[in-house]
Structure formats: structure tokens, C-alpha cells
């Protein structure tokens, strides 16, 4: 049976740029796929684009390509990424520019049509309500505050882009799994209704899309024994034409691929495991078989698929007020009590100045900043050497956030003793709400385009 090898390059915007070089050099792969977009990433990119209209894509694609293109070109590896974010043309231009600088001839395909920001009124006129996907709640006055709107496109357009002969495929909001299923559709010519094979391709994509999280990273119990995380091997899959595959990693790298690491990623962020919905197929993950077949080798097979949904998910981001914060640390003795007293002082100071936040949240770093009310209260305060207080507020205006930040430094002189490390006055951040909704696919897919540029 025909097989192809495919590797993972990055699991999010900001992921390490080093492991992909091992995948390219030693992974013996024909394709490397990058998933750079989480729900939150588009919000981050939108903030960037407002400062600079040429931005809006994941900017680390430039240094990444600078290191990777020479190896990829030499070995004939094709690269697929959704680094385009909300500006895929900008990303494609930037990658073409890198190729020019390096003197490498390159064919770059750029996929657009996922961005519906400029089409919201037109779509509304055609009957799209933009009701919340889960609650059915109407979009209402949020409409006027929308800052970006992107539809999740599936793997078919990635396969179509590869069919142009492109060395690099750059898209905007294609799904995480599309980066991986796309090359398989292209390679094996899987039909649009070959639901079981498509489902296997989605499981492959889902397992690989978070890079190191399937090969020994974030390994919850037993992490102490995972070797050489500093040189973790990003996942590589050996895929057969029937859709079954063996998940592994490049030889000589650290990390580990075993049943535990694969299981943890297998059910990661998928909600209902019987109905994992993607634009390409609906997968039943309760039908998948996982078997350890060797050291750092897990075989995955058997996933059943059902017909793709008639709608596509869209994610809208909207302005949702401001967030302000401040930090201060206290040392032994009674570090925690001092930090709590400091929080009382800050709250009173806000009230004295008429600042009434929509929400105020306090955390004691070292005690409960990650778990909040789920964290047990310390039994013996004398054993706590230091505590860092963080207070954070959400308000409708930026000024209130500045008032909060301004209140921390004075505590050094006029608060409880042994205060330190206020770290200046953090700048207020604009918050973005995210809104998920469903759009009939026939209103989106005719607008999808592939542009090819040759350098």
C-alpha cells in the first residue's frame, strides 16, 4: 500500500522554531504542516493589524521560513500553514520576499475567502442571523463592535492549493486539522465523501496540530521521565492510503510518543467525542483504535466518519472593554496576610476615586492564581516565603485601568512592609469578546480563491 510521511512544524503562534528543523532534516517527510491559529490568536492578530495594516498574520512565519526554506527546497518538502491569519496575502508576500532574499525559486499559493468581515451586511441581507452557535442568542448590538470575522474553511481548499504545484500553501482561517488532511487528500485523491478515510485524516491532523503536546510535552503524570524536552521531536506520521497511520517523531530527538501521550492529545478540546465536527467530515472518536507498535510508534486506525455538515463555523471578534492590572510582591513574615491587606487598600483606593469596574479579580501568585477558589488555603503561613498579588479589572474605559496601575507603586512606601517588585505600571489592554456562529457553506465556498505567485 502506498504511504506518505507528513510532519508537524508548529502548534501555535509563538511555538518554538527549532523542532521543525529536525523534522525537515531527519523526519523523511514530504509535507510539513503548521497550525498557528487558536481561537485567541485571531484576536491578537486583529490588535496587531489595527496598529499596522500590513500585519495581521503570524509574524514568526518570516524567521521560520528563513531557516526552513533552504532545507525544504533541497529535500523537496512542501509546506502548509494557516499563518495568514486575517491577512493571508500579507503573509504570502512576506514569504515570497524571504525566498527572494535567499535566492530560492518558490511557488507560493495563497488561499482567501475565509474573511467575511466586509460581507457581514450582505450575508445578513441573505438571511444569515449570526446567532450564537451554542445559545442561539442574537448578535444584537455586538454587530457594531465587530473587529474581525472569519469562517473556518476545511481541507479541500488546501488540497486544491497543493494541486497548483505550490511549494508553500498559505491560508487564513483554515481549520487546524485542514493543514494535515489537505496534503493527504492531495496525495491519495480521497473522495469528498470517503467519510472514513477523511475521518482518519482528521484524527491525524488533530493529533499533530498541537506539535509537542502529542510527543511528550504537557505529559500530565510521569513527565519527570520524559527524555530531552529541550530537543523535543515534533510529531511525524507515516500514513497509508487506507487512512491508517503510525505516529512517531524524528530519530535522535527527545520527548516520547506512547499511548499516554497520544491519548491525551486525542481527546484534547474536542467536546463531544462521538461528534467531532469539522468542515470536512464529522468524526466519531469512540471508534478509533490506538496501539503501541514499537518504541515511539503508535498506530491509529478505524475511525468512522459521517457526512460533513451543511454549515461552517465562523468566529467574530468584538471590542469588549478594557483590562487593567497591577502586581506587587511581599516576603516573609506573613507574606500572604500582607498581600491580602494590600488588596483591601487597592480596592478602597479605587472606590475613593470613583472607579467601579465591571469585574474585579484578585489572585495570589504562589497560592491560587491558577485555580482560584479551587486552590486549598495554606495551612501554615509561616512556611510561605513570598506571595505576589495580582489585581485585574475589566472596565468600559481605559482611564480606570490606568488609575488601578497607578495605585501599586505607592504601596512600596505607604503599605504593609517588605513590599517589592511592582514592575512599574502595566499598560491597559483592550479586551476582545469572541462570538461563534454558523454560516451556510454555499454562501462562503464560492468566494474562496487561490492565488499563485512565483518567485
Amino acid at each position, binding site marked *: 500500500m502506498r504511504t506518505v510521511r507528513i510532519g508537524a512544524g508548529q502548534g501555535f503562534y509563538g511555538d518554538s522554531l527549532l523542532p521543525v528543523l529536525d523534522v525537515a532534516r531527519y523526519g523523511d517527510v514530504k509535507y510539513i504542516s503548521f497550525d498557528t491559529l487558536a481561537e485567541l490568536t485571531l484576536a491578537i492578530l486583529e490588535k496587531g493589524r489595527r496598529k499596522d495594516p500590513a500585519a495581521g498574520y503570524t509574524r514568526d512565519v518570516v524567521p521560520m521560513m528563513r531557516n526552513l526554506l533552504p532545507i525544504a527546497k533541497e529535500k523537496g518538502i512542501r509546506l502548509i500553514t494557516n499563518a495568514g491569519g486575517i491577512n493571508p496575502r500579507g503573509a504570502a508576500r512576506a514569504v515570497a520576499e524571504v525566498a527572494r532574499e535567499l535566492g530560492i525559486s518558490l511557488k507560493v499559493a495563497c488561499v482567501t475567502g475565509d474573511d467575511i468581515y466586509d460581507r457581514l451586511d450582505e450575508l445578513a441581507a441573505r438571511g444569515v442571523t449570526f446567532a450564537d452557535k451554542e445559545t442561539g442568542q442574537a448578535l444584537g448590538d455586538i454587530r457594531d463592535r465587530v473587529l474581525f470575522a472569519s469562517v473556518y474553511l476545511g481541507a479541500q481548499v488546501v488540497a486544491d492549493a497543493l494541486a497548483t504545484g505550490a511549494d508553500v500553501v498559505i491560508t487564513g482561517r483554515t481549520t487546524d486539522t485542514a493543514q494535515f488532511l489537505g496534503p493527504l487528500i492531495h496525495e491519495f485523491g480521497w473522495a469528498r465523501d470517503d467519510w472514513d478515510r477523511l475521518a482518519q485524516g482528521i484524527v491525524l491532523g488533530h493529533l499533530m496540530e498541537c506539535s509537542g503536546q502529542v510527543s511528550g510535552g504537557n505529559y*500530565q503524570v510521569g513527565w519527570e521521565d520524559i527524555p530531552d524536552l529541550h530537543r523535543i521531536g515534533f510529531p511525524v506520521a507515516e500514513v497509508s492510503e487506507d487512512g491508517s497511520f503510525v505516529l512517531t517523531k524524528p530519530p535522535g530527538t527527545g520527548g516520547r510518543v506512547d499511548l499516554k501521550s497520544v491519548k491525551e492529545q486525542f481527546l484534547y478540546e474536542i467536546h463531544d467525542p462521538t461528534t467531532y465536527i469539522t468542515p470536512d467530515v464529522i468524526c466519531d472518536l469512540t471508534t478509533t483504535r490506538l496501539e503501541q507498535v514499537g518504541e515511539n510508534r503508535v498506530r491509529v486506525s478505524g475511525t468512522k466518519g459521517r457526512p460533513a455538515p451543511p454549515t461552517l463555523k465562523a468566529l467574530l471578534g468584538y471590542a469588549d472593554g478594557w483590562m487593567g492590572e497591577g502586581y506587587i510582591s511581599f516576603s516573609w513574615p506573613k507574606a500572604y496576610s500582607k498581600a491580602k491587606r494590600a488588596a483591601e487598600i487597592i480596592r478602597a483606593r479605587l472606590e475613593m476615586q470613583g472607579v467601579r469596574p465591571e469585574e474585579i479579580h484578585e489572585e495570589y501568585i504562589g497560592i491560587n492564581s491558577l485555580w482560584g477558589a479551587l486552590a486549598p488555603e495554606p495551612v501554615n503561613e509561616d512556611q510561605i516565603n513570598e506571595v505576589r498579588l495580582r489585581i485585574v479589572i475589566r472596565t468600559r474605559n481605559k482611564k480606570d485601568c490606568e488609575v488601578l496601575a497607578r495605585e501599586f507603586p505607592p504601596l512600596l512606601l505607604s503599605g504593609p512592609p517588605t513590599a517589592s517588585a511592582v514592575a512599574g505600571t502595566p499598560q491597559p489592554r483592550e479586551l476582545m469578546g469572541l462570538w461563534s456562529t454558523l454560516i451556510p457553506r454555499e454562501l462562503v465556498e464560492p468566494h474562496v480563491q487561490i492565488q499563485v505567485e512565483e518567485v
Partner: protein
Amino acid sequence: MAKRIRLIDICHARSGDKGDASDIALFANDEAAWEIIRKHVTKERVAEYFRPVAAGPVERWEVPNVQALKFVVHGALGGGASRSLRSDNLGKTFAAALLRMEITVEE
């Protein structure tokens, strides 16, 4: 004889986010652990455990092929990652919090 155990003694887990929900998978270490968590780690129990930080409700699925329970805890992330005020705005540590939950089992 009944005894109290913590889930970390018999399970591993991982959590992530989707909107304002925390998505947690709890994996039994072996067949015996699978029977225990199926019986004792109910939707109600998990909802009660997370109530101090999550408005709820909680959904639960059994995934027998990997001997796991999947939980989706709604209203758990302070409005969702992009507007949450919490340090752990993605609920990455909720899996560990669940592993600290105690259950009573028969010896």
C-alpha cells in the same frame, strides 16, 4: 471497607478551552481504574467540585476505546480566554485540579 483516593492515584488527564467552557479528559491508568471512574466520577460530582469557579452545567461522555471520561464544564473560564481576567485564562490547569478531586471507593 471504603477508602478515599485522589484521582491522580489512578488517572491522568489533560484540559483545554473552547469559548467559555473548560474541556477536560480524564484517562484511567488501567482496567480497574476505568471501572472506578466510570462509576464514581459522575457529572453531578464534577459539577459540584468545579462550582466555586464554574457556573456550569457540566456535560460528560464515556470514551471506552481509550478508557476515558470527557467533561465539558461550561461557564468555567471567566467569559472565555480573550476576555478572562484570570492568569489561567485557557483553563490549562483544570485537568490537574480534577486529578486532585477525592472519591470514595470500596477496597
